[in-house]
């Protein structure tokens, strides 16, 4: 089983990203679940969502405490949240940033400027850049699911072609 924890803020689309990730994995023939942790949080507050991908049906409902990967959609949550909490030795970090980042040794770190991509693609809703479709492209590059299934998962969710263009841009930008 591969377990992913997504850090974002309420309203940024972390929950939808989790759903599209699980959908893409299922389209690859895997089993997957996506669950947001519903706390008392509201728009703008740090939130976490969980994705589990496995070769057999997922029977776990509790939260992910030892993720294989963390996805940081909004780096500003790191001011108040220890995003590395429980991350497995050798685990992966994907972060949305255009800046140089440094994390403790022992993890694989990947990044892409999803916010910049969303702004370039004019993928902005109610003043906020949409991060959940470009992140699908970035995670396809990391091999979480196939590129084709990622595109299908986006198209199942959003009709606007800017979403897949943003995902393609993120796919190109991530260096593996």
């Amino acid at each position, binding site marked *: 089983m591969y377990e992913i924890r997504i850090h974002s803020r309420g309203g940024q689309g972390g929950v939808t990203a989790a*759903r599209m990730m699980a*959908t893409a994995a299922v389209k690859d023939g895997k089993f997957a*679940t996506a*669950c947001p942790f519903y706390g008392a949080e509201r728009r703008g507050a740090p939130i976490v969502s969980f994705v589990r991908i496995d070769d057999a049906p997922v*029977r776990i*409902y509790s939260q992910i405490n030892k993720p294989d990967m963390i996805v940081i959609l909004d780096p500003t949550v790191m001011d108040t949240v220890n995003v590395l909490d429980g991350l497995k030795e050798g685990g992966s970090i994907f972060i949305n940033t255009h800046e140089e980042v440094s994390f403790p040794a022992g993890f694989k770190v990947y990044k892409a400027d999803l916010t910049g991509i969303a702004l370039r693609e004019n993928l902005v809703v109610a003043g906020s850049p949409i991060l959940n479709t470009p992140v699908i492209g970035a995670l396809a590059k990391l091999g979480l699911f196939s590129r084709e299934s990622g595109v299908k998962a986006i198209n199942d969710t959003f009709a606007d072609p800017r979403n897949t263009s943003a995902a393609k841009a993120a796919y190109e930008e991530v260096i593996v």
Partner: protein
Amino acid sequence: MSELIMSTGNKAVAAAVKMAKPLVVPAYPITPQTEIIESIADYVESGELKARYIPVESEHSAMTAAIGASITGVRVFTATSSHGLLYMHEMLHWAAGARLPIVMGQVNRTLAPGWNIWAEHTDALSQRDTGWLQVYVSTVQEAYDATLMAFRIAEDNRVLLPVMINMDGFLLSHIMQPFEMTEPGDFIPPLDLPHKIDVKDPKGYGAMSPANVHYQFRFDMEKCMRASRTVIDETEAEFAKRFGRTYAPVEEYFCDDADVIIIAMGTLGKEAEVAADLLRKEGVKAGVMRIRWFRPFPLDMNIKGKDLVVIDRDYSFGFGGVVAGEIQARYPDAKIASVIAGLGGQEVTYEDMAEFVRSRKMGTEFWFGIPQEEQ
């Protein structure tokens, strides 16, 4: 197999309701159930479901409207949760007593105070004696399948009692899992309510039933509740035959050779399978029984001689865990270690459940998270 769809538990219940085609859906929103009735409202608005959707001003009225519609002989669905269910309480007795096959989605949520929207079973278990059948589900697929089966079971003329489909708040109502949206075809036969109101043949309803007859009505309910065991078995067998997915009133996981069995309902009962896998790797012969149908209560659990670790996500103050208590009452020789865990959405992992088994003290009650010296 048709394509798998990613869906929440709530949306799967709504999709099954659309397939079952109720004619009337009275509804009042409450977290974490609201997505069920919102989805149904969308189906009605788009014409995918040709039903009369009645927005009401309270859950008491929702159930009252369901009763009024059901007695005309049409299929009726509603959904609620937690305080909404309790607000319906009087009318739950009325629906069952009037022998109306209403089907209700019930998302299990904690009762206040303090304010808490997360999973607990005390809401539905406190409605134990209303005469409703109660099933507890553990996956999105099961939520869909159980909803389809609920209509057939409730409407069977050997039953004619309402059915409540219970699903853990957020843990299942809001998780997204792949599921197959099976077309039921003629799996749910048309409803033929023998005592529906008929203006051409007027009769009295809710009339005085004096002491010399009332107990007969109540015994009829119990006879039908007993008969529902057969109807449930038949329905689940027919469902398996047609659609390939098998269910039983109690789902067993590696119980035959087990020395110790975890018993739980809902999502805890599913995650407990992972705990059993973990324990078996350690050489502990562990199994799981996930009670699905709580009413009618299962009478043929094969628990003789085994240690039972019963996890209650509920509590009856001044008595104990409701499920543990019911097992002990029905199986007087049962050896039970009672664990109270998951109240108010308290996080309980499969590792925690494995530890409940390792550290079990038979004949005691253990509250997860409370220091030993205070127990």
